[in-house]
């Protein structure tokens, strides 16, 4: 355990770097990981090909079909404005996936960089950077995201940045711990003896060693990012109407849950599916990188 903050319910799951070399990495992925990957792939394809797959324009209102129940005309029903729920779900996948993946990639790059620099340089740089991360870490991710979006405005870029910001310290701390574990290893000392520059040692030699750990972290945090985005949209801080976001659809559906429960159920299931898929991938990657953790658990 490195003391790295994982998403709320995923503490104590950061793997050590694997020593297992006997099988290829892909062969070590278990079935649930493949299921997770397949689900994410399907959702990505659904999002990319939404214009071809969606039977209707997701923002087109048709008051005459207000709150139509699921059936032949509208497979998953229509909302209070007569908009097709299936089409909105397909287009909504674009926002959830984009925000879920890009925000964490952003956090991964920026956080890991900060953590690597802190771990490698040590001293005051380390103290300043990590204390800043500790301050950010003190806020629950949803509350921090909420504050940032409320301040900056609910645009796609701002939501993405806000969620990335909440995940930043996690990556910084993982990267810092991993760099500190590596920096006195023989190969790093050898690099120093050969006169390699600090950045070269850091990015060409240490980075590949800590990358698996960071990637596992990223996959687990993507689930959190999707949840945070949906939560923000649910409380009214998501993308402005008429953009179809899953959290926003749950919010709007909730107003009619007593007579048209499908409006809230279908987007909720979509969120559940994507979060589950990211978690399966994260768990699988962790197990593949360090099988000892799996047997231990």
């Amino acid at each position, binding site marked *: 355990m490195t003391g790295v903050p994982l998403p709320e319910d995923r503490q104590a799951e950061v793997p050590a770097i694997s020593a297992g070399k006997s099988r290829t990495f892909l062969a070590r992925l278990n079935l649930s990981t493949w299921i997770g990957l397949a689900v994410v792939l399907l959702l990505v394809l659904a999002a990319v090909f939404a214009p071809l797959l969606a039977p209707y324009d997701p923002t*087109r*209102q048709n008051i005459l079909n207000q709150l139509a129940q699921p059936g032949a005309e509208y497979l998953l029903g229509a909302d*209070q*404005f007569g908009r097709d729920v299936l089409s909105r779900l397909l287009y909504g996948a674009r926002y959830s996936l984009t925000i879920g993946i890009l925000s964490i990639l952003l956090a991964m790059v920026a956080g890991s960089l900060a953590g690597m620099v802190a771990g490698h340089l040590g001293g005051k740089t380390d103290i300043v950077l990590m204390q800043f991360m500790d301050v950010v870490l003190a806020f629950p991710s949803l509350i921090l995201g909420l504050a940032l979006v409320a301040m900056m405005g609910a645009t796609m870029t701002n939501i993405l940045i806000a969620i990335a910001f909440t995940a930043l310290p996690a990556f910084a701390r993982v990267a810092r711990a991993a760099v500190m574990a590596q920096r006195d290893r023989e190969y790093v000392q050898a690099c120093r003896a050969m006169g390699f520059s600090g950045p070269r040692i850091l990015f060409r030699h240490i980075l590949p060693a800590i990358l698996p750990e960071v990637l596992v972290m990223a996959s687990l945090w993507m689930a959190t990012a999707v949840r945070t985005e949906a939560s923000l949209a649910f409380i009214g801080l998501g993308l402005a109407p008429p953009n179809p976001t899953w959290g926003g659809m749950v919010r709007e559906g*909730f107003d009619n*849950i*007593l*007579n048209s429960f499908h409006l809230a159920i279908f987007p909720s299931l979509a969120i559940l599916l994507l979060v589950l898929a990211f978690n399966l991938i994260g768990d699988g990657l962790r197990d593949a990188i360090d099988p000892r953790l799996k047997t231990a658990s």
Partner: protein
Amino acid sequence: MFIPKSIGGRALAAAFLLGTALTPLQAHAEKTKLSLGAASADVGKLDPHFATSTSDRTLVAWIFSSLVRFAPGTTDPSKIEPDLAKSWEASADKLVWTFKLRPGVKWQKGNGEVTADDVVYSLTKSADPKRSAFAGDYAAIEKVEALDPLTVRITLKQQIPSLLGILTNYSGGFIVPKAAVEKLGADFSRNPVGSGPFALSRIEPGQAAHFVAHEDYFRGAPKIKEVAYRFLNSNSARDLAFAAGEVDAATGLAERQWLARTQATKGAVVDIFDPAELTLLHIDASKKPFDDIRVRQAVAHAINRNQISQFRGDAFTRAAGSVIPSNNLGYLAGSGMLPHDPQRAKALLAEAGYPNGLKIKMITSQMPSYETMAQLQQAQLQDVGITLELQPVEHATWHQMIRKDLNAMTTYGAARFPVADIYLTQFFHSKSAIGQPSAVTNFSHCTVADKEIEAARTETDSAKQLEFWKEAQRKIIAQVCAVPLTETAQVWVRRAGLDWGYELKGSMSLGPLLTELTHFKD
């Protein structure tokens, strides 16, 4: 009579008799705690002269009294009755009015008795733009004097359509205690003291406002002793709370699905009442691109008010016919409104230099009725190439932001005292424009009908007065200061056992008025 002989048998019989004797007492124990569910997120301002949101208006009407009031359950100006004033008389020229106050009316929370000084202070405050949001309505008052502790004289600069109208239990007409307001300053808004039937006891932010009966209320101690006004802004949460018996009455939803569902609920009574709120889309001609009338006309042609009315359901909503509510004295139906014509709208945009359409940002309220209205407008405007970028914010924040002149287009629903002068003055007179010292709700910065509005205010010939008001409406519509959308009645649901104490057919406070007679039936 059979008496059991064993001790156990006697004990059982005694218990049975005791139980039988207590049962009627329990069954008839009067319920005195009322719980209401409101479509609001929190308390805004409970200083009645700043209470502009629907929810705040509802609450201040329970806390405060006024010189005169609408008979409970009506919005009929012909049924104005005495409240704090027991009688009044006017000079022959209707410029000097003398009011005699009821003696011994007590302020809540031990703040003494209502005196003429309090009335003078209140009406002066109502007329002061720095201390009231309704100052424009009181501009005709020259002076208010206390002749003695129970006599007040109001002198007008000129005749106005209805002095009694602006002295009712509505907007600036509420009387506040001078000493408490001066002592509390800005805190008065969260710690109001009135002379009405219910006193605010505490506020749980975002949860509820709690009230207790004002036992010294001059019409008698209220039958209801405690009121919990719960903030249940989510429609479903409110419906569920009502269905589960957590609240005795709740704000309804002016939508047909809601009505069908609620009417099917056993023991639920739906109250649909006046005033119908007129919703207008105000367009600020001082901001680009709306400085070009063709763009404003394009917006007007893009709006399909019948479709919006159909969306809401005809039990509550009808398409608006002018820029003032249809129940107003002076209303003119069909005053030259532009019809729904998307092709004409596109042509006008092209003429104005926007052949490919344009983008407009609009801050909107997250209150469900506003949120749905905004999305309906968004879709209709999109059809003619106008992309409406919505920026939804919490309702109280929205009220603040639109008063900082941040919107070029503002959708606003309101009901006012049913005389054309009030609505026209507050929404279309230049002195009410946002940014002016006496700013109220002229979001469009409209100035075209100032002359008619002012002339009608002092016109003594009622036929001429009506004509001035009608001409004002024609001009406002011709200049597209606002696009009329819908008129929607107020709606609440209550348990059949809850009796408001009157028949609820109208309420200027936009929610049920709680009186000393409000109670639960057996």
